[in-house]
């Protein structure tokens, strides 16, 4: 699947994809809270100025306005940083979007410690938890820009609330254009039978690297891209537990409440299995994104080590 395309940030595709969809006749609008260049939303605004509504730095109002537009039949996107939306407008998302299931799509960028130099306040490590706490939201976290673009299109074409999480840095392209995103399906990135590495976002690439290392040690790791967190791929998860008996989750997010929490709970309900967790436990700090991934042990090495631990827990 891996090809030589240039690195690209997942956040770069929002504006261009919305513009494409609007050109195709979809009734898309976009509400903005003064981060339209960072989330690339203005690329849509430039082409469709009447469909682009800046609200200034006012995330609560952004969500409310989007819900109002959606109630009149619009496919209402809005975007901000993942610390501010959902964080700064949670109740608005709950009341104006999740409960009435309005057709609002929140695209958040700058998630995770890879946000980098701004430090703890800017590094969203709880946004997936918040979004998963609203049961009517579809929650997606693409592993690369190709998947991200397809998710935006799927969100636009599927009625109801969506959240798409994206990252600041340019990261590796993992999928070629033939890839087709399916809601609720976790792409199998590599097969294996000794352990399963379930990763999301930029850590999918790290999990693949870890699998490569593990292969060198004679361990065959399966790698799943958990890009669809709600709905999640129950079948792929249970098959992984059954087939490999040991699981590692890896996410640039707090361990509790994100992918790790979701996997743990589904397994506890159906198939108790040892799980090791790669992710964040406390708030982040300033640094370059690559330094921070090292600093907080969100690396292929840490994933490979966790795989070893998970495997060693199998028989107990």
């Amino acid at each position, binding site marked *: 699947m891996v090809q030589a395309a240039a690195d690209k940030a997942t956040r770069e595709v929002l504006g261009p994809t919305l513009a494409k969809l609007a050109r195709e006749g979809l009734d898309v609008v976009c509400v903005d809270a003064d981060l339209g260049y960072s989330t690339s939303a203005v690329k849509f605004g430039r082409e469709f100025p009447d469909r682009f509504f800046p609200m200034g730095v006012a995330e609560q109002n952004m969500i409310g*306005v989007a819900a*109002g537009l959606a*109630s009149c039949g619009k496919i209402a996107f809005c975007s901000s940083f993942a610390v501010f939306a959902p964080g700064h407008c949670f109740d608005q998302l709950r009341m104006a979007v999740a*409960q*009435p299931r309005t057709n609002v799509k929140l695209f958040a960028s700058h998630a995770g410690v890879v946000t980098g130099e701004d430090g703890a306040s800017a590094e969203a490590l709880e946004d997936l938890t918040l979004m998963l706490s609203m049961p009517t939201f579809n929650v997606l976290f693409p592993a690369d820009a190709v998947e991200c673009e397809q998710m935006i299109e799927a969100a636009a074409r599927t009625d109801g609330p969506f959240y798409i999480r994206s990252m600041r840095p340019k990261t590796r392209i993992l999928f070629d254009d033939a890839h087709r995103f399916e809601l609720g399906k976790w792409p199998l990135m590599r097969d294996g039978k000794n352990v399963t590495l379930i990763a999301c976002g930029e850590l999918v690439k790290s999990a693949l690297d870890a699998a490569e290392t593990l292969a060198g040690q004679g361990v065959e790791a399966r790698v799943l891209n958990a890009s669809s967190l709600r709905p999640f791929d129950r079948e792929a998860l249970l098959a992984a537990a059954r087939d490999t008996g040991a699981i590692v989750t890896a996410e640039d997010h707090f361990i509790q409440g994100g992918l790790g929490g979701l996997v743990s709970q589904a397994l506890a309900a159906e198939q108790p299995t040892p799980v090791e967790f790669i992710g964040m436990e406390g708030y982040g700090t300033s640094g370059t994104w690559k330094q921070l991934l090292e600093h907080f042990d969100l690396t292929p090495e840490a994933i490979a080590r966790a795989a070893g631990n998970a495997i060693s827990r199998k028989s107990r």
Partner: protein
Amino acid sequence: MAQAPSASTEELQEVARRVRRHIVRMTHAAKSGHPGGSLSSVEILTTLYFRVMRHDPKNPSWPDRDRFVMSKGHATPLLYGTLAEAGYIDPDDLLTFRQLGTKLQGHTIMGKPPGVEMTAGALGMGLSFGLGVALAARLDGRDYHTYCLLSDGDSQEGQTWEAAMAAGHHNATNLTAIIDRNHIQNDGYSDYQRYDDDGNSPDRPGGWVMEDNHTANIMNLEPFADKWRAFGWETQLVKGHDIEAISAALQAAREDDERPTAIICETTKGRGVSFMENNPDFHGKAPSDEQLAQALQELGFEE
């Protein structure tokens, strides 16, 4: 009724009286709910639904309908009562209010029943939603108008001022805010205006906790009209139980093509039922059997 009917003021007053009856009966039957803030907006809704708004109970999702967005989502007895009078709800259903399985939920839920435009119950959210609806009208070239009903409490939430600023900025002239300014909120009196000061100093700013289960001067909104003007709105100050005055203000607001209009309605919380009037206790408390009987009598009904 695709066009607003032109009912006489007497007819509207009669509708208002029936809506008040629904309010006290519904809250009594539910043993809970919010009579006070429902009673204070009765004339506002009556005027909207029976004189000003273009709407069709047979076609609640008609794209060209005027929208009524109720930010103060706890005033469901008011809204359901009015929708029943207007033909959206079977009046027989009203007494299922707040009961398990009912369509008539404690706080509004969008589309439940059809005619309810917005899910609410958390204050401060309606004006943003209304602005979105108004911007959609402009984008779609539709000439419907959007009316938002706000409360004292709504006006203390920052989101309302975000929305006010944005509506002013985007020149949402097809948006009107109507504020039910009854000066009473959950814990008591917003300010000292309606509070009868028995020798206690009204000088202490902020939250003077009373002996008698209310707080006075919780958060003063004055100078209220100045706030709206400074956020880019036209303002009107109106006697909030005077149907003629409300009609005139709504008409002027609709015609204003320079700015959105905020109509500040001076109202009495609990209006029409003597022991509820200006009484914070009945913000969120239902009348007892005896109180219901008295309320109905005061409203001129047998039951």
